[in-house]
């Protein structure tokens, strides 16, 4: 090691004095940012840290004080699953679709599209910052309906994003810059990564009541009250369909009332649409909440993902759509989203975008896709039924498991607490997230019985 290269010419003292914030390491944010205390424990107020004199230290890393971050609560589950050698193990962690044989699934239409793309010998030139134009066109049409007047009036700003996460992050960055101080209201509970996205984008958030454990259903009154109580002009993060993690969606009538309240309070609806087609099996039905709001003339934000419905998980393909009150506003907003994407990754990846454009843009492939979608959604509905039947057969205590049938989409919110979820993993080698969420997409018919045993045991024998 060439530590001898360092010379002690620095005027400050030669002793190592790390500011106390770095010991046990909560990191400081730079002074020039105006972070507020709502970020919680992850950041300390930058004004209170001083420069260290560690630069002249020998053989000590500048990153010595960095602590080990905990594994991601969702993606970390798959890591743990992979490390488990038990043959009964079951991965119900991340929401990735599995066939009945518990194999990952690449859709036939995707394979066809990729072959077509290869045959055409397309180039790999940079996309424009806003992404592939043909993708942006079909994605907006898929979401809102191809004949939606909003599209004809050019009032929708669409920018290709890195799946759902990336699209949400672009929207968050837009909110931070143009709506300083505006809050995002997030359902309690919600997808675990939502809060991370807004925290790191420096957008304040608060929660609205959503899940009612006593009914294992929607706390609709709580939801409405909390949305009403929020400061005017808040962004309300709504799951377009197949709420993650609960699987509990508002009814069409409830959606109308939610829209009324949002309109009253001049809030801005912000949809996360990660399961279009997966909830009911129908692409149009699953988009009806978004279309309802759009039809009212409301300006809204919609993040889309093709990870699940086209099985394009690793290709990172999605979009952020901003429905504006005029074509002029849409043009301006799009230009500003581009300004946020450029210093993040310059322009988005082309491969996944081309696949989507080819599938959605070709009537034959599009129809084929719809069929494959119905098969996937159908398989999930059937394991829901089988799991429910197994639990009913096993559990004579009177506990009502019918919520499993009512919940929609990939996930079931079992109502198991952390200790019970730990039991599922430690005793039964069933991997799930600690909030009690299981991914039915990772469940086979063959394993329903085993899972029912595990749930029955964890619910009744662990507290």
């Amino acid at each position: 090691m060439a530590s001898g290269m360092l010379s002690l010419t620095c005027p400050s003292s030669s002793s190592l004095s790390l500011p106390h914030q770095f010991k046990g390491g909560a990191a400081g944010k730079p002074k020039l940012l105006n972070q507020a205390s709502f970020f919680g424990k992850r950041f300390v107020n930058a004004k209170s840290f001083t420069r260290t004199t560690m630069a002249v230290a020998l053989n000590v890393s500048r990153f010595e004080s960095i602590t080990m971050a905990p594994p991601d609560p969702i993606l970390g589950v798959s890591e743990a699953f992979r490390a488990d050698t038990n043959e009964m193990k079951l991965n119900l962690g991340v929401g990735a679709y599995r066939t009945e044989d518990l194999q990952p699934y690449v859709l036939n239409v995707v394979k066809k599209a990729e072959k077509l793309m290869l045959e055409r010998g397309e180039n790999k030139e940079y996309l424009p910052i806003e992404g592939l134009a043909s993708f942006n066109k079909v994605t907006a049409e898929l979401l809102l309906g191809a004949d939606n007047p909003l599209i004809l009036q050019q009032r929708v700003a669409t920018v290709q994003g890195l799946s759902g996460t990336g699209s949400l992050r672009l929207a968050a960055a837009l909110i931070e810059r143009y709506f300083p101080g505006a809050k995002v209201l997030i359902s309690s509970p919600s997808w675990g990564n939502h809060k991370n996205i807004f925290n790191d984008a420096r957008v304040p958030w608060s929660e609205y009541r959503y899940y009612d454990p006593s009914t294992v259903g929607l706390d609709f009154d709580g939801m409405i009250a909390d949305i009403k109580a929020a400061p005017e002009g808040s962004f309300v993060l709504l799951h377009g369909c197949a709420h993650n993690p609960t699987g509990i969606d508002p009814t069409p009538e409830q959606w109308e009332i939610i829209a009324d309240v949002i309109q009253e309070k001049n809030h801005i609806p912000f949809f996360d649409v990660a399961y279009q087609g997966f909830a009911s099996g129908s692409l149009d039905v699953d988009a009806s909440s978004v279309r309802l709001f759009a039809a009212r003339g409301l300006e809204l934000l919609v993040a889309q993902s093709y990870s699940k419905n086209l099985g394009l998980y690793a290709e990172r393909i999605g979009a952020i759509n901003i429905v504006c009150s005029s074509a002029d506003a849409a043009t301006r907003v799009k230009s500003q989203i581009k300004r946020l994407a450029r210093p993040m990754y310059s322009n988005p990846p082309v491969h996944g975008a081309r696949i989507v454009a080819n599938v959605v843009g070709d009537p034959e492939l599009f129809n084929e896709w719809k069929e494959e979608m119905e098969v996937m959604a159908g398989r999930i509905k059937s394991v829901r039924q089988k799991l429910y039947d197994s639990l009913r057969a096993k559990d004579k205590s009177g506990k009502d498991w019918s919520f499993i049938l009512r919940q929609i989409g990939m996930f079931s919110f079992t109502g198991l607490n952390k200790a019970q979820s730990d039991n599922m993993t430690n005793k039964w080698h069933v991997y799930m997230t600690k909030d009690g969420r299981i991914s039915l997409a990772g469940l086979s018919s063959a394993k329903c019985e085993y899972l029912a045993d595990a749930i029955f045991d964890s619910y009744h024998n662990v507290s």
Partner: protein
Amino acid sequence: MASDHGDSVFANVVRAPEDPILGVTVAYNKDPSPKKLNLGVGAYRTEEGKPLVLNVVRRAEQMLVNDTSRVKEYLPIVGLAEFNKLSAKLIFGVDSPAIQENRVTTVQCLSGTGSLRVGAEFLARHYHEHTIYIPQPTWGNHPKVFTIAGLSVKTYRYYSPETRGLDFQGLLDDLNAAPSGAIVLLHACAHNPTGVDPTPEQWEQIRQLMRSKGLLPFFDSAYQGFASGSLDEDAQSVRMFVSDGGECLVAQSYAKNMGMYGERVGALSIVCKSADVAVRVESQLKLVIRSMYSNPPIHGASIVAAILKDSHMYHEWTVELKAMADRIISMRQKLFDALQARGTPGDWSHIIKQIGMFTFTGLNAQQVAFMTKEYHIYMTSDGRISMAGLSSQTVSLLADAIHAAVSAVV
């Protein structure tokens, strides 16, 4: 309140101008003239003026798409493990002790930009010094990436317009005046936009100065293999810093050298003092990535990994890469000769001295505007031209335009 005809919540959002670099292509595409030339963005073009997908890339891609056992499951947050290992070996050397000692963490990111951004976010959260020194001039997107990540940007002298070369003393003076521990952005080779690189001796001096002041190097390596035609030679500056045992960050891009532009393939490596630190650093990089896009795209990285790990394909790649680098070098010579032949006023030897994809012509904004208006030649307003966009056919058009601009506009 927003309604069909009412006020917009976006009323205060103004229209942003086009990006100064990518916007050149936008303007070029709009130009209806049949005889136009795009020398804006650094994307390689063949002698026929066409984009190029390397043969070895096509083959690798075919193999991957036709492999029915492949799936599209989420990559880990840090990306494709094989790709990460191979990328580290490519830049640090296969025998790098830093790699063998597990002191390097490498995470797959979205090309060079994504790697720079993730590195900058990490430094803003976990490094005690939040000032980064960037060379004057530098790639237009650099200051934006660092500023938005929360770093404070300062410059160090780099290019001397008088000599059209490196202002080495200015560079040393400015780095010497930087606060201890400050971050310093270094272009590993083929400096963008100037094409002016330090010599190995100068790199050694820079290294000594930086280590004595505890300045943290952050390398941007976007042209490995493109500068000299040799992958190892183009990595020397980085390897010099790593072999002294010190720490550094390296952002790698495969956009140009593998032609992966639109697939967004790159990697961020952080060389740490110890394996233990590297593990902890990696865990924190994952938090930065998770909230930005969760995990990186698989397609481009798998193509790159397939090529890097197969000795035949790797060799084929080096041959195709050298061919690209050689074509650019020959364009330099042709342009220089064309200007000499026209007796264009001024010393144009910098065209053949500068390294990499770009030439910093020395033309001013008015001359550039003249060339665009009169000759439909598109370039960035700082006078940077992408040699990769030139061909034997188009050299004379460019030489005519430069000649006219220099004669007519001062």
